[in-house]
């Protein structure tokens, strides 16, 4: 529990970050960096949404598939049915959440490694469907020339402009996750994460809360996927694969899983990596794996635990 002052400090941080963010596109040396900043914000959305699922003690290995479903759905709605992308992304968000409710009601009875396996299979199914349902998805070629998001004739297509949209959505998701954590839902989520049998013995409907968390997390992933599709203007079966799911998990672990700030920090650290590692094409995933093992071995609480680790060492306890 954080007190009144903690609340003010955190709100202040959010406002300060927003002010700084306002100048970011202008300060970055070229469009490539703006692009990286945009991808980082989108990753932040994905990592936060995965954190929400993790906060009830489940680890989804198919998170990218939900992003992919949102991406295809919003893209197809705008290209085939002429739905404005600004509305399409919201439909994609809700529909993905609805799909997660159906899936979650069935698979959330599974715990631990079994849940992980089924979410992994769900991810693979999505990739196969995207590849083979060519009439709808255009197969391996993917969907090209996806329209950008426009609101009242104003286009969020250009990279520096999209930055503000991505930042606004990221901030909204961040505040939502924070509010969720502090609500009575958050208390129930915590109790399920810490001791699911005990939570159930207290009369908490753990299955219901796990489905809710799974739906919220997956819905936000669908929203993020839809935003990505209208930003990159292209989506294919390769856009959201198992490797992306692993990358999202890596962000959580590297940043720190215990608090949602960890997801944000993990996204900020991990997202630029593929661009920096361009020259090591093919080795990227090995490097991801190495980072994961290194962090789990030496800093299991992730980067956000560094202050407390230092304090413990410095305090001589």
């Amino acid at each position, binding site marked *: 529990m954080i007190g009144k002052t903690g609340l003010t400090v955190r709100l202040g941080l959010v406002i300060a970050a927003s002010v700084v963010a306002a100048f970011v596109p202008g300060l970055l040396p070229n469009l490539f960096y703006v692009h990286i900043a945009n991808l980082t914000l989108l990753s932040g959305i994905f990592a936060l949404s995965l954190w929400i699922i993790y906060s009830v003690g489940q680890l989804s290995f198919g998170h990218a598939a939900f992003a992919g479903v949102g991406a295809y759905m919003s893209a197809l709605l705008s290209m085939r049915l002429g739905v404005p992308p600004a509305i399409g992304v919201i439909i994609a968000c809700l529909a993905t959440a609805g799909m997660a409710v159906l899936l979650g009601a069935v698979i959330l009875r599974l715990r631990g490694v079994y849940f992980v396996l089924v979410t992994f299979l769900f991810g693979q199914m999505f990739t196969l469907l995207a590849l083979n349902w060519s009439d709808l998805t255009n197969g391996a070629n993917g969907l090209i020339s996806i329209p950008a998001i426009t609101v009242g004739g104003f286009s969020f297509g250009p990279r520096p402009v999209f930055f503000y949209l991505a930042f606004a959505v990221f901030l909204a998701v961040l505040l939502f996750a924070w509010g969720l954590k502090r609500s009575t839902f958050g*208390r129930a989520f915590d*109790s399920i994460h*810490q*001791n699911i049998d*005990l*939570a159930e*013995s207290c009369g908490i409907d753990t299955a219901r809360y796990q489905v809710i968390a799974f739906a919220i997390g997956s819905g936000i992933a669908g929203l993020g996927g839809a935003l990505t599709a209208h930003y990159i203007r292209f989506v294919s079966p390769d856009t959201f694969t198992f490797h992306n799911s692993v990358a999202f998990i890596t962000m959580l672990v590297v940043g720190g899983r215990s608090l949602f700030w960890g997801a944000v920090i993990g996204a900020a650290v991990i997202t630029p990596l593929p661009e920096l590692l361009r020259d090591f094409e093919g080795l990227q995933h090995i490097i991801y794996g190495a980072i994961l093992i290194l962090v789990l071995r030496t800093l299991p609480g992730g980067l956000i635990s560094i202050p407390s680790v230092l304090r413990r060492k410095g305090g001589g306890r």
Partner: protein
Amino acid sequence: MTGGLTIDRIDVSYGPRSALRGVSLEVAEREIVALIGSNGAGKTTTLRAIMGLTPPDRGTIRFEGTDITRLAPPAVVKLGITLSPEGRRVFPQMSVEENLQLGAYLKTDTVEIAHTMKRVYAYFPRLLERRGQMAGSLSGGEQQMLAIGRALMAKPRLLLLDEPSLGLAPIRVQEIGQIIREINAEEGISIVLVEQNANMALRLCQRAYVIESGAIALSGTGAELAASEHVRRAYLGG
């Protein structure tokens, strides 16, 4: 019998592995019933079946006339049964008070919750001293108190206690035993006491069951079982 708990010939299995076979058990109103047996005999499984955590394949469980065999845990709690589990008994990263509040999760009347919490603190003054402390940092005995206190917060009419003496120093075992007796007498709560410590359990209870490899082997009053040759040899070390 309308009041109390009646378990009628239940079978419970974990996948292909059978854990309970034809277990029947009765707990009258305001009674303390002990369930003793060795590790893996099926004691915890019996409690899990009552709570709805591991529903039985066959047989019925009735509480105060209601069939609860297939009810999910929240519904069972709502009817007035709570469990203080063995092993991981508390929410480690929450304060003592937050743990207690979660025990009253299904209660909405804040005045009643505050009143119940006061009573719990009266039984366990140590918890009041540590109310702001993280439950994970409490000693084993304190965590046991918290687990019982948490279970009381739901104002149950039947309390299931799984190994309350496990890992405690002999003096603490006596303390806990005394409190269990007080709770039973003052609150009028029926108690199922699952124990490996047969000595303590047989002294506290009115009636007891001995469970061996998933089936009830013996039953009787606490004194009868304490005098039985079989129980003395197998469970009382004499």
